[in-house]
């Protein structure tokens, strides 16, 4: 039985060694600085579950943190399973509201209305996002692209960094004679959907592929999730990929390209994207704020590749055990200046202007019981 004794001994020794080593490590502690004045006027208590889009996961995190600090008796859990699964769980009555990259419409809206029994389900745009064209070329600090050239690259027509089409837009830049290592999402995603919709709207001659949540253009390499696309670009020299802006905030090698939609190069910043989102038109009725984005927007301070993520909630009729009071209170906080003010630092785009006024009206229409 020597074998078993040795194994047990090795395990114990290894564990204690690791634990000892662990004790030596340092920690910054988990304290988050509490906001100076209470951002939530009427705290609700209890807990809710909510699920959906992974694109807004980090925005949800910061809202939940600040809300829970202000209201210690509340617990909100957001599970970033994907918009489709999030809407399904909401319709199935598993969650109190859903986070989704595309507004719930058609058959799904009928089902969602049925789920809300006496009330209706409404889409509330709560988090905007910019899709950055992340690139990694040593020494290339600034890159400008037009929708046509961008579509050419992602349609596999432009394959070299020193292609004349790219060089023409970046005179003076030192473009390498290297193949563009292209990365796209290998999972289904709202980001892919919005990006290909942008290309289809702005460069229809070059981009001839059907839109949708799945990438279907030839060539390039797939990576799972925005995190892996960003990490792939960060690691691969002479690469390019599309990710939400927040995923390149901490990057060292990857930068976001400037997009020239006719009014000069526009940088992918939170402010520029917010300006573009404000110009979207409402296609939902009443308090349902489903939006149609204007990808062709041509303005010197509007970054055109944007997306909007929604919270889909019951205006009334949410069962009491799913805590409508907390849903209302939490979304009110999210739509407040304090809530929206948290977004830019995380690489998201706050809702602003008239749209924000409408959002607050929609949130105010949510029943609290």
């Amino acid at each position, binding site marked *: 039985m020597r074998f*078993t004794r040795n194994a047990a001994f090795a395990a114990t020794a*290894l*564990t204690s060694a690791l634990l000892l080593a662990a004790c030596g*490590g340092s920690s910054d502690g*988990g304290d988050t600085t509490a906001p100076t004045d209470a951002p939530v006027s009427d705290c609700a208590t209890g807990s809710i579950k909510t699920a959906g889009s992974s694109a807004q996961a980090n925005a949800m995190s910061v809202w939940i943190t600040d809300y829970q600090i202000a209201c210690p008796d509340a617990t909100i859990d957001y599970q970033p399973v994907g918009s489709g699964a999030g809407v399904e769980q909401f319709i199935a009555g598993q969650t109190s509201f859903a986070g989704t990259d595309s507004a719930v419409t058609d058959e799904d809206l009928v089902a969602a209305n049925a789920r809300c029994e006496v009330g209706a389900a409404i889409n509330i745009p709560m988090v905007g996002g910019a899709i950055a064209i992340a690139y990694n070329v040593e020494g290339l600090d600034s890159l400008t692209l037009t929708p046509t050239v961008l579509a050419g690259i992602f349609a596999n027509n432009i394959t070299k960094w020193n292609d004349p089409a790219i060089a023409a837009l970046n005179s003076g830049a030192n473009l390498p004679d290297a193949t563009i290592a292209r990365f796209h999402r290998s999972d289904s995603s709202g980001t892919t959907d919005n990006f290909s919709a942008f290309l289809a709207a702005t460069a229809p001659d070059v981009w001839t592929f059907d839109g949708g949540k799945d990438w279907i253009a030839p060539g390039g390499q797939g990576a799972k999730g925005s995190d892996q696309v960003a990490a792939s670009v960060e690691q691969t020299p002479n690469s390019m990929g599309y990710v939400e802006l927040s995923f390149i905030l901490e990057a060292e090698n990857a930068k976001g390209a400037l997009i020239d939609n006719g009014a000069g190069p526009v940088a992918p910043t939170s402010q520029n994207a917010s300006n573009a989102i404000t110009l979207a038109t409402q296609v939902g009725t009443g308090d349902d704020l489903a939006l149609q984005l204007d990808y062709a927007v041509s303005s010197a301070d509007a970054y055109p590749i944007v997306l909007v993520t929604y919270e889909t909630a019951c205006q009334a009729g949410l069962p009491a055990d799913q805590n409508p009071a907390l849903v209302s209170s939490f979304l009110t906080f999210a739509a407040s200046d304090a809530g929206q003010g948290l977004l830019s630092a995380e690489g998201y785009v706050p809702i602003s202007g008239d749209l924000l006024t409408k959002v607050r009206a929609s949130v105010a229409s949510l029943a609290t019981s």
Partner: protein
Amino acid sequence: MAIASAERATGSVHLTGRRLPRWAPWALAAASVGVGLLVQFSGITAMGLAPGIVAALVFLIGQTTASGIVEGRRHAVDRLATTLVYTTFVLALAPLLWILITVTIKGLSVMSPEFLTGTMRNINPRDAGGGLFHAFIGTLIQVGIAALIAVPIGVLAAIYLVEFGRGKLAYFISFFVDVMTGIPSIVAGLFIFTALILTGVLEQSGLAGAFALAILMLPVIIRATEEMLRIVPNELREGALALGVPKWKVVLRIVIPTAISGIITGVMLSVARVAGETAPLLLTTFLAQSTNFNPISGSQASLPTFIWDQISRGTNAAVDRAWGGALALILFVLVLYAGARLISRYFAPKTS
């Protein structure tokens, strides 16, 4: 036989036949390294093969040839087999140790008492700090319940297959256990999600996750236990039965204790397999950032979903936490494993 005739042919009267001198393998190894260095520095390319591979091939071929000439075919094959067995071991150990070391180093960078006792409640993705206590509790509860369900059923089913099972029923059970090992984990989660959660029997909870994990554990436990029970020598069973011991006592007191170490390895493998399962838990449990001891209701985190969540956040602090979570998961299994080994030693039949 072959040896005798060979000896007669060469007129040798040695008891052990001719052997390579003890220094021969070492000399050959040195020569191989020399060839490797030659490839490395001389610019001679052997089809672009790496010097290490060239050296290994030279050693393998050289030793087999030399041994074949001096010692005969049987010993040449033996030496070849020995070298290959050692090679496979080193070959396999390299990536495996590499993973363990990577996880340990990356994990230790965030490991701290706070990391083990804290939770992710009110920690933003970009903030450093936070912890996995909530996830650890969740995994403990979920895997524990799964094991409580799967181990008795699995071991009993294996006992049925080996000790009692005859005919069509046993054949079908055994066959479908094999098929069950191939169920993708996400399908198990899907099954629980639609069968128990959408029908309103359960909400998304630790218990639902445990059911999904139990489905995944079951075939591994049955197959491993079955395999171990089968190789318990029949002489033991027959001896006990001949002494008039009832069958159930033979199984519980003779067969199982003899096979216990293998059974525990099987159970550990199944626990290890499901402890790291992410996909089914994403469907059946609900990701939580706070501690929840209640498996029946409310959101409950687990180590794999914690890791999955942190990685997909994409921020540096979150990815670091994910590696810390992986290290914690390995340590968790390590401790379980050591415990199981001690238990198995306690139950094993006393030898000498």
